[in-house]
């Protein structure tokens, strides 16, 4: 039972990170019917940018709430700009081209970002300082929660609830949903589709940036190619939840994180990745549009 509860905490933590990244995939897919394969590499870029801002501006030794907030805000802003540029340079010119061209462009853009990280920060693993967050640990009868885990769970929940309300309760959010359903009809309402796509990339990239920073803070070691692994897991999470569906991405991320943690806890962490794909296949056999993906099917 202890292992179960401990892995529940660990699983929800990593699941929240998957969910944040999965939202980026699913929102872009929802509006553009495009898998942004460079998204995982933006997540990796975020960790390096955040690390540099932290060490250059604040110096290794200093920790304060202000420093952490500044690092998060600046990094999210930088990654949002990179995300918008990515769309302008790699996807917009191919908006009316066959989808395969856009997929190739996405894969290429991912390689460019990955190699840029390697050229700027080098091919070796870089280590996040351990003192960004207090090292407070809570121990409930053997079940351990760290301050970092609590921050990940807390901030991710706030961001996801906020996004949910933005998408479902505001005029701009409704316009985003309308654009996802029918771009021409959206234009006839006076909706500037290019602006909507830009907003999607800003939101998706910022959420990915938060996840990238948390990955650095939580796991400490970051490598230029780590975007591939986190990106793939989050992409699988988005598909499990139903690609294009926002609550689906949140649900899929949490579910995949939990599943991974339980496999790691009861079988072995080296099996986690294999089981990820077993889970994906099982879900797709029984629900080809993903668990919450009915709306996507309805649209076709």
């Amino acid at each position, binding site marked *: 039972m202890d292992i179960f509860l401990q892995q529940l905490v660990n699983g929800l933590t990593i699941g929240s990170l998957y969910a944040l990244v999965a939202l980026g995939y699913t929102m872009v897919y929802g509006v553009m019917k495009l898998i942004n394969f460079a998204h995982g590499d933006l997540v990796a870029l975020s960790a390096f940018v955040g690390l540099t801002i932290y060490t250059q501006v604040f110096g290794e030794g200093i920790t304060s709430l202000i420093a952490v907030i500044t690092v998060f805000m600046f990094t999210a802003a930088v990654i949002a700009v990179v995300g918008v540029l990515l769309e302008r340079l790699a996807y917009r010119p191919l908006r009316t081209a066959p989808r395969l061209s856009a997929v190739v462009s996405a894969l290429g853009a991912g390689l460019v970002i990955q190699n840029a990280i390697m050229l700027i920060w080098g091919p070796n693993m870089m280590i996040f300082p351990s003192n960004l967050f207090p090292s407070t640990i809570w121990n409930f009868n053997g079940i351990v929660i760290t301050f970092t885990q609590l921050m990940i769970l807390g901030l991710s929940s706030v961001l996801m609830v906020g996004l949910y309300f933005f998408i479902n309760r505001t005029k701009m959010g409704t316009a985003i949903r309308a654009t996802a359903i029918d771009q021409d009809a959206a234009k*006839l309402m*006076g*909706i*500037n589709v290019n602006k909507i796509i830009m907003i999607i990339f800003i939101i998706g990239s910022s959420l990915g940036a938060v996840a990238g920073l948390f990955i650095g803070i939580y796991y400490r070691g970051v490598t230029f190619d780590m975007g591939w692994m986190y990106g793939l897991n989050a992409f699988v999470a988005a598909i499990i939840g139903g690609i294009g569906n926002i609550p689906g991405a949140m649900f899929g991320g949490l579910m995949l994180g939990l599943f991974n943690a339980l496999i790691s806890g009861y079988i072995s962490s080296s099996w986690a990745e294999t089981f990820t794909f077993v889970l994906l296949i099982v879900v797709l056999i029984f629900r080809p549009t993903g668990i919450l993906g009915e709306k996507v099917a309805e649209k076709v």
Partner: protein
Amino acid sequence: MSEKLLEVKNLHVSYGAIKAIKGIDLYVNKGEVVTILGANGAGKTTTLRTISGLLKSSEGSITFDGKEITQVPAHDIVSLGMSHSPEGRRVFGTLSVEENLLMGAYTLKKHDKETLNWIYKILPRLQERKMQLAGTLSGGEQQMLAIGRAIMSKPKLLILDEPSLGLAPVLVKVIFKAIRDISESGVTVLLVEQNAKAALKLANRGYVLELGKITHEGSSEELLNSETIQEAYLGKKK
């Protein structure tokens, strides 16, 4: 007295190598209902989509309310006072009826409660179903929604592409009654219809489009009484 709200001059539109519109001229005066008739594939939808900015013309000019809009993107044309209810309704299926209507008012800072209430008055079915997802409405109800959504922006010109297509006769009546109400409230209407007789009864003037060219034009009476029109467009229909 008759002031031109929309004027299209020498319009050409192509899909790649296929020339769909081959130099047409038409105009709509303020307050008029003007209809464009024509067989399937004549180019009616292409004309409307070009006017509202979804398609780019290869030649010619479009002037709306004194402003040249040939190069203006579709989303900016809406705020100039033109609204286009497209062929096939194109309601947002996974949005509620009311959300669809509010999207119609996207260009307004704040949607106009009066317009919304007026739409609910002339199309009461929409009010009954306002919380329902648009995709679950019947075809006729979706058409009502598409028209209601288009007038939420309080347009000067309402463009309608085949609003009665595929509807049962009772619903066709409801739709035409709503168009008449909208026209009488002061909105100018450009109407494309398969149902030529009903369209000409409602309209002041009409154009006949054949293979991308205008072959006849005139007042509705002239067109209703013209033998060629009667044979081609009114003969088999009742």
